[in-house]
């Protein structure tokens, strides 16, 4: 902030101030005198402009707080307004109970001229406040779905709605910005997902900085420190680098970075697959605690059913890009119907030698269905809340099976 520069810029700033004043004049039919508006409106006009003006008027007006206020009260168009106030808990219609709605979603990847469709005609609703477990083997598209909600993977057909607002395809920058303050992700590999060159303070507060979610530097530090303690890390770790931490600690940093944004919805992409057994429990507990405390919605992606059983409310089993079974977590374990679900269940290792040795592994053969075009399989509700992908004969067969299991509630 050297004097000469300020002088050279001064005329420019004056111009702007007069411009703002004249605008003010017309708005109020010229009833306000120049003196009255002089201080307050300079402030506002500066706040509305780019940050570069802050420097110029830095000494005359303390523009910082005003700037923050401005940013928070951006005018919203009706769609965005809806989007913004999705959290309004007074309204509780059927549509409001669903956070993410995927309709006929199609995701494909292009390799040269070849197009490979990974997900086709996917319909999935994620309800407010639930943990939805998404289980499948690698290559089944479970991660792709999570990434599509995050707008990392493009959707080539259908749409994804978030709080009844479309978030797939082309959306306005403003909507995208808003979305990214509400939706966060926890990644599988805590080593790769953290920037090696940045210290923990920077990593955790990156989101806060990007969206100016703090009033001043002290507030930011308080928020970060509080979050560090919340995930069980000491505040003095803030100035260390990711390589100084163990895998479990890194994953907790990943969770802190995610939770500090106070998200409404989280995509947890195999957050414990890369961790040791003794640490898995800690991370699972942490996610569950946060979920209960803040009433978030979580999409929990995993390949191991035993993990998902503990944490989720509903489980969706996915095979080759198609949901084959969707049921409340306990119900899925009680009465699995689709052969793929059954094969997944037998694969879960049970830490008990006597039981584990007797187990037989069932391998799923997708060719066993004998589907025909005239009776294409689809996701059908076989009992309340319990959906299975099947065709008509299979539907009948599953019904009988369910009866034998003592199912129908």
């Amino acid at each position, binding site marked *: 902030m050297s004097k000469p520069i300020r002088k050279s810029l001064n005329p420019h700033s004056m111009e702007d101030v007069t411009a703002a004043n004249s605008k003010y004049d017309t708005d109020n039919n010229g009833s306000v005198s120049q003196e009255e508006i002089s201080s307050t409106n300079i402030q506002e006009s500066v706040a509305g402009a780019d940050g570069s003006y802050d420097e110029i008027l830095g000494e005359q007006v303390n523009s910082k707080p005003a700037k923050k206020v401005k940013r928070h009260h951006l005018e919203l168009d009706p769609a965005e307004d809806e989007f913004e106030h999705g959290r309004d808990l007074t309204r509780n219609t059927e549509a409001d109970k669903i956070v993410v709605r995927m309709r006929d979603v199609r995701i494909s990847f292009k390799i040269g001229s070849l197009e490979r469709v990974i997900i086709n005609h996917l319909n999935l609703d994620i309800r407010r406040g639930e943990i939805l477990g998404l289980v499948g*083997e*690698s*290559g089944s598209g479970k991660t792709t779905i999570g990434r599509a909600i995050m707008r990392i993977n493009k959707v080539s057909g259908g749409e994804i709605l978030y709080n009844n607002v479309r978030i797939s395809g082309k959306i306005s920058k403003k909507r995208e910005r808003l979305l990214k303050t509400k939706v966060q992700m926890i990644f599988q590999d805590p080593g790769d997902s953290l920037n090696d060159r940045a210290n923990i303070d920077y990593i955790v507060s990156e989101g806060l900085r990007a969206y100016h979610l703090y009033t001043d530097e002290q507030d930011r530090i308080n928020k970060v420190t509080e979050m560090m303690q919340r995930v069980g890390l000491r505040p003095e770790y803030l100035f260390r680098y990711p390589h100084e931490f*163990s*895998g*479990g*600690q890194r994953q907790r940093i990943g969770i802190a970075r995610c939770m500090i944004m106070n998200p409404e919805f989280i995509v947890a992409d195999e957050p414990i697959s890369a961790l*040791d*057994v*003794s*640490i*898995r*429990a*800690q991370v*699972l*507990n942490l996610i*569950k*605690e946060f979920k209960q405390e803040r009433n978030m919605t979580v999409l929990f992606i995993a*390949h*191991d*059913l*035993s*993990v998902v*059983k*503990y*944490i989720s409310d509903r489980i969706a089993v996915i095979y080759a890009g198609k949901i084959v079974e969707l049921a409340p977590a*306990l119900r899925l*374990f*009680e009465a*699995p119907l689709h052969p793929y679900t*059954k*094969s*997944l*269940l*037998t*694969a*879960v*290792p*049970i*830490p*008990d*030698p*006597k*039981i*584990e*040795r007797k*187990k*037989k*592994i*069932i*391998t*799923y053969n997708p060719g066993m269905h004998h589907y025909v075009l005239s009776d294409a399989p689809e996701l059908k509700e076989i009992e309340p809340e319990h959906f299975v992908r099947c065709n008509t004969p299979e539907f009948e067969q599953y019904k009988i*099976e369910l009866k034998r*299991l003592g199912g129908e509630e």
Partner: protein
Amino acid sequence: MSDEKEVVIDVKNLSVGFVVRGKTTNVIRNISFPVYRGETLAIVGESGSGKSVTTKTFTGMLDANGFISGGQIIFSGLDLAKFKTNDDWLQIRGKRIATIFQDPMTSLNPLLTIGYQISEVLMLHHGLKKDEAKKEAIDLLKKVKIPNAEERYNDYPFQYSGGMRQRVVIAIALACRPEVLICDEPTTALDVTVQAQIIALIKELQEEYKWTTIFITHDLGVVANVADRIAVMYAGQIVEYGTVEDVFYHPEHPYTWALLCSLPQLGTKEEPLSYIVGNPPSFASEIIGDAFAPRNEYAMNIDFVMEPPIFKVSETHWAKTWLLSPMAPKVKKPKLIEELHQRMKIAAQELKRQEGDLDE
């Protein structure tokens, strides 16, 4: 039972050190255990507990800054701890003791065909001609259940899926008919379904070839499936050693209790999972007393002062904890451990029923 078994590898008072920035740290601290012929020994522990380092000493694959600082590894009359040159190791490594690593992508050469990588081993170790080796290699691929083995012989590693690659690595290990197969977390990078298949394959082949397996993992579910004996490692020491029944049904060391309690399979909706607080100790400073004491809710004063000796529980079972000392107060094991088998039964019941269903 243990008297009749022949010992393949006998580890006696083994210590391993690493030189880091001019300082020597002891990573394996005076461990002794036998490996019995034809059995599967599982080594369980957190990352950094020294599981992999222990087995790396069997094939001379320690990193350049690591060295055996004491003890013996007796394998068919030879002391492997005394081996120095690469020529010494060539007779053992790969040929009599083979290793399967965690990540099959890094253990295969991406520039060579799968077929070549298998037949190479056969030509080198068995002196087979090229076409003989090819025939043998295809047989091996069939053994590990690769479909269309003849066609896939000329494929490259990237054309195989993770599970398939691990099968290929097993085939390469098989090529030499090793006496001991070390599986270093072979299924950690794989899906549960694929994991179950690979484990079944290893077990099946072990029955056929009668080798001895040393299975390194942190997944107790896998251990329950494959192991005959278990060695639980913590901070470079074996804290509990016994048959699979001993360790799962009558665990004595608090660390084993904690490990078993933290299994997600035990979780119920109502209560949070229990877990081990804190972190494993760092090797940078000397460990005094029981290494697990700071994280152990059953720790006594003596645990912080003196290292516990080995207490025998039965002929096949021992643990390194002061709790087993006759002078120690009687502690009640965690409720979960007492209920472990019951809980597992409940967890398995649903699965069991499904298996029954499919039989019909």
